[in-house]
């Protein structure tokens, strides 16, 4: 055995997908097709990732390849956000900007402080963790901001009618949306180690890393995710204010949001 899980084991774990499909069929959820598609897609994407990582992580490969892969991840994450909230114009560009800003800040701190060395085995996994978690929070904050603006349209326009600039009129509602996006991450951070063991830590333990080393690594990752979610959602909220108001401080809600 080269790693903690052999190929046969990975295939055998697919039995669990069959369990989920059976539950869906038994309960009449009609999610069987979605479950199978998701499982096959995850397998294909991870296989592709494996091929790319082998190429990138092979000793002697230039570091630029890792950064290029990070750029690809940012573009794909932005596209995913756009697909999930298609009614908001220019959200792809805004999300990519937010992920890039977050990568700059969080990876800058980790690498700058020497927490991890800058090399091909750290850049891609850390960026992947950061972008993946930020993407979920981004979709949440975009949906929350557009819903909040729609629900509180009268209040926002009443503030604008008092001569408040859009930045001030939007502030209470953006704050609420940001809180909503950040609270799940804060709760997850609070519960870690007691309620659940994060996937990465489980992975490290299964790979034979000592529990103390696994805990230390996990702590850094939790802080990385927390920081990146905070930076990404803040950039998104600020950018959305520019998208959802005109230069004349008029509210323009996307159709179908």
């Amino acid at each position: 055995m080269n790693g903690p899980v052999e190929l046969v084991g990975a295939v055998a774990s697919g039995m669990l997908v069959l369990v989920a499909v059976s539950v869906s069929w038994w309960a009449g959820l009609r999610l069987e097709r979605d479950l199978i598609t998701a499982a096959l897609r995850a397998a294909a994407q991870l296989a592709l990732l494996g091929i790319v990582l082998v190429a990138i992580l092979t000793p002697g490969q230039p570091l630029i390849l890792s950064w290029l892969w990070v750029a690809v991840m940012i573009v794909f994450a932005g596209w995913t956000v756009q697909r999930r909230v298609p009614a908001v114009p220019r959200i792809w560009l805004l999300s990519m900007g937010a992920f890039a800003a977050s990568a700059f800040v969080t990876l800058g701190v980790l690498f700058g402080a020497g927490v991890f060395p800058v090399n091909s085995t750290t850049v891609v996994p850390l960026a992947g963790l950061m972008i993946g978690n930020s993407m979920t929070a981004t979709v949440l904050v975009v949906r929350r901001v557009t819903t909040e603006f729609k629900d509180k349209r009268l209040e926002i326009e009443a503030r604008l009618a008092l001569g408040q600039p859009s930045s001030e009129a939007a502030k209470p509602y953006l704050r609420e949306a940001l809180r909503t996006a950040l609270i799940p991450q804060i709760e997850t951070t609070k519960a870690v180690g007691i309620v659940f063991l994060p996937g990465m830590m489980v992975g490290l333990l299964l790979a034979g890393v000592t529990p103390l080393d696994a805990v230390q690594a996990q702590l850094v990752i939790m802080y990385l995710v927390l920081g990146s979610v905070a930076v990404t959602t803040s950039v998104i909220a600020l950018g959305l204010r520019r998208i959802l108001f005109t230069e004349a401080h008029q509210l323009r809600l996307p159709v179908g949001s």
Partner: protein
Amino acid sequence: MTITPTPTAFTFTGVTVTFGEAVVLRDIDLEVPASGITVVLGPSGSGKSTLTRLTNRLLDPTSGSVSLRGTDVRDLDVLELRRTVGMVFQRPTLFEGTVRDNLAATGLENEPTHTEMLHAVGLEPDYLQRDGSTLSGGEAQCVCLARALLMRPDVLVADEPTSSLDHASTLALESLARDLAADGVPILWVTHDLAQVERIADHRVTLEEGRVVQA
């Protein structure tokens, strides 16, 4: 903002507003006098609210222009314009917090002025500490009016301000509007209530399907 005295408060010239395929206002030409209460009457969906939103640029017309005392509103600083044109909405729209917080949202935090303005709309000074969510519809709309008046607007625009109020509150708000108009603040007042038109209108405009049918 320097406001030159002119016989008209607002002038709508060839104003058309469309939302996608829907034409909400069609080629409106209208002059709103700079004195008294001008009532805009019309059924639901006739474009009355849209007309009010053009006066302080919460909305811009698709074509045509709107002028305040002879100056195109697009040539004025929009934030200044909105402090010059006080607006009261159809539903009492209070922000989270106390009445004081609501009045302070104008940027004016002088408490004696707050008290004076509450008095002007018939509310006692102790209302300042009350939470906005505890007020009745009539009281809340009076606070909204006080909030709009706090900025000493040159013109007041009221979009069906009594539609969610009981009869007594409606009459009280109408009386306040009459006093204000008598003090020289022209008012553009939207309603679909014919009896109200009889009680308060100095000038009237009727809208139907986005067109002025009587002015």
